[in-house]
Structures are given as C-alpha cells and as structure tokens.
C-alpha cells in the first residue's frame, strides 16, 4: 500500500536565518519509495504568519533583539556597494 507523509527540517544559520526543507515521502508497505524536497527561507524579521507553528516557535526563540540588529547590519554591509 502506498502512503504519503511529510516532514519538515529546519536549518538555523548563524545569523538567525531559518532555511526550511519540506520533505514529501512516499512509502510502499512502510518502505520508502521516493522523497522530494521543497525549500524556502525565512529571514530574520520576515513575516511568519503563514509559517508552521514549529517555525513560529523557533523564530520566537532565535530572533532576539541582538540577532535582529546584527542581521540588519550584515545585510547593509553586504549590499552597500550596489546603487541600483
């Protein structure tokens, strides 16, 4: 019998960015047949309204005030040489 289930793996980068890997797994009689990945990134201070409760909980813990400031500074310093 074919069954389908999903897993979600979160990768927390050092600057607080959350990389989300949604894993779709199809099994036949309990043995994995295939798995596919769908990814997106949740940057610090991005809206998490549409994210899973798990991501919301992680963001709530990881995105401290210091992390938000450091992330904003890093973003500016990385891009300040591009005018347009």
């Amino acid at each position, binding site marked *: 019998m074919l069954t389908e289930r999903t897993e979600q*793996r979160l*990768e927390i*980068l050092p*600057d607080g*960015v959350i*990389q989300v*890997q949604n894993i779709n797994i199809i099994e036949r009689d309990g043995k994995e047949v295939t798995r*596919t*990945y*769908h*990814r*997106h*990134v949740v*940057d610090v201070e991005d809206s998490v309204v549409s994210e899973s409760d798990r991501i919301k909980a992680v963001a709530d813990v990881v995105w401290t005030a210091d992390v938000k400031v450091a992330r904003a500074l*890093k*973003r500016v*310093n*990385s*891009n300040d*040489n*591009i005018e*347009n």
Partner: protein
Amino acid sequence: MSLEPPPGSIKEFNHAWVKWLNGLRTYVNDVNGGIFDLSALTATVAELNYNDVTTPGTAEATKTVTTDANKDITGLRNVTLTGNIGFGGQLSFPASVSASTDANTLDDYEEGTFTPVLSDGSNNATASVAVGSYRKIGDAVFIKGYILVTSLGSVSGSLRLTGLPFTSSSTANTHSSVSFGYGAVFSVTAGYSVSGIIDPGTSYINVKLWDDTAGTTDMQHDEWTTDGRAMFSGFYTV
C-alpha cells in the same frame, strides 16, 4: 603447508591457505569462521576488525564492518582508492550537509523545488503559475523558474522575486546574476532587457531593467504589469 601463529597473536586459527592474486596472499580462518587476509594486515590491533562473511545478514555490533543479506557493506569510514569508481547505482549524500572546506571535495548534492513570488519586499503578487526548481552541488545553487502573475495586489515600487531555496553567501561583493530568457505582458520600452541579481546574504532576486545609459535600474511594478510573466535561471553560492 603449516602456519604458525605470529608471536603475540591474539587470535586462534583453525585453517589457512595461500592464494596467488597479483602476488602471494595468505588467508586464515579463525575459530569463529571469520576470514583474515594476513597480507593486508597493516592496522593496529585497536583498529583491526574484519568483514563477517560467514553469516551474511547477521550484522554483529562488535564488528566494525558488516555485510548484510543484500551484500551492502556498512561501517567503512575513509576509503582511499588509487583507481576509478564505476557506479551501477547512485551516489548519495547525507540529508544534512557535511560541509568541507577543502576546495577539491564535493560535500553535497540536493535537488528540489521552490515557489517564486513577485514582491516589493512587503506585499506579494498573486500568480497562477509559480514554479521553481533547484540543484545544489557543493556550495553552488542552480535555479530556474517560471512565474505568471495575475494580480499585483498592493505590490508597489522596486520588484524582487522571493522564495529562493537557500540564503546566498554573506561574503561582501559576492553578488550573483540571474538571466531572464522570456518575458511577456511587460510595459517597457522595446529593446530594454530584464535581468536580476542576488545580493549577498539574501534569498531573493532583485529584478533589474537595462533601461539607463549608465546600466540597470530596479524594475518597477508598473513595468511588470498585472499579467506580466517571466522565465529565469541562474546560480549563486551559499
């Protein structure tokens, strides 16, 4: 012939034979049926173990290397080959990357999908088609996608395509370029080109327009229009 156990031997052998295989090799069975290739023994006693070939399918926790009923071998750590590798199957990497800093080491491969979203950074457009796929090879992420917008909603000002599968490298000046091979229902002057860049430490494409004598400017929402659509591809590093 007879085989005398070497001085200090910690194993008891009950059988031995010799075999020519690119030179003389000597094999012995121990009392449990395990096979030793004495010619190949260079490991220290602490490292020494052997492949349990007498009872395939019966992995023994005490053995470092085991062969299961499918002839799958597990337990090997570092293997150095002096010849070529031929694959009859696939080459797999762990789900979580085991990052290497060695410039000659391939440490990751992953393929999957992502959903591109046209945005101004705060507001998102609605699309009837939003398809993206990626291949990550080492620290390089190759992307391609197609988006067909049906409503800009509240999107206003400079445009970006969000939803990239990985955050780009934060190293300063490591911007990446994205090419657009197809665009339609835009409101731009004929001859202008759409392009994109991925800034360091971001997960979106800044959409650009080659419309200035000095180079590019940010593409604006009224240049994309409500039904604008585009195909794009590129790669960046993480």
